[in-house]
């Protein structure tokens, strides 16, 4: 472990703000890249299921 205490870990002798900004943004962008396809998948499934159902009703 390169840091004595937790605060030193966050402070990172002056560069902490940049490191955490960079890592935070990376987390946001990578998470977004996973999140959007999942949401899109849910919407696609819901939309197509309702379309199938509607087609079924129209046939009846």
């Amino acid at each position, binding site marked *: 472990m390169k840091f004595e205490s937790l605060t030193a870990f966050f402070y*990172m*002798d002056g560069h902490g703000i940049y*490191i955490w900004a*960079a890592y935070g943004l990376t987390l946001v962008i990578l998470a977004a890249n996973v999140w959007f*396809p999942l949401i899109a998948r849910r919407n696609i499934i819901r939309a*197509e299921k309702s*379309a199938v159902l509607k087609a079924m009703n129209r046939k009846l």
Partner: protein
Amino acid sequence: MLNWFHRLGSPKTFFEISGRWQVPLLSLAVLMLAGGAAWALLFVPPDYQQGNSVRIMYIHVPAAILAQSGYVMMAGAAAVFLIWRIKLADVAVKCVAPLGASITFLALVTGAIWGKPTWGTWWVWDARLTSTLVLFFLYIGVIALRSAMDRQAGVGRACAILALVGVVNLPVIKYSVDWWYSLHQPASFSLTEKPSMPIEMWLPLLVMVIAYYLFFFSVWMMRIRNEILVREKNTDWVKQWLAVR
């Protein structure tokens, strides 16, 4: 080998195969990302010149590498689509463009943030950052053309042509930007050179690069699966698959 390649071309087979690999691949990628980040933050010794800000390298360099190879992979899929007219290749090109653009944007921003403690300014016209910026415009071009021609029949082939034109120009752009940078800036420390790093510094970098690639492929696969569901919605295998969901 060709048979496998051809079989993979059919959306149904690809959907099944990717279905099995999706969750393990994504979880492995996330695991490696977390592990690599923790390693980079906690165990890597601070750099004698830059101090702790070198830790940003572990998220910037893989993103920059991935941004470029992402474009080459897109061009590869574009070539496959133009030559063999495999519909899945067009789906692959369509899905990778936004993903590649986001990774390039990530590389740009982390590069800028890394520049602040190192040179004191947010943006520096460094060779690698500038060519990443131009690469970002290339991605934006493909995305813009895709959305502008969305309704037209030839959208797939047009974007494939643009991707190939872009990849042919990529080395020329990279070379001219590197040359341009060396013209105005006598060789000082820049992000481009890879100083010979001790093993405990480049090993986590290798882990992070592999993690980024795994992540890239798993998200790409997710997007392709969504697009297959949309494009093949009238087929019976999708209807059966939906019925089970």
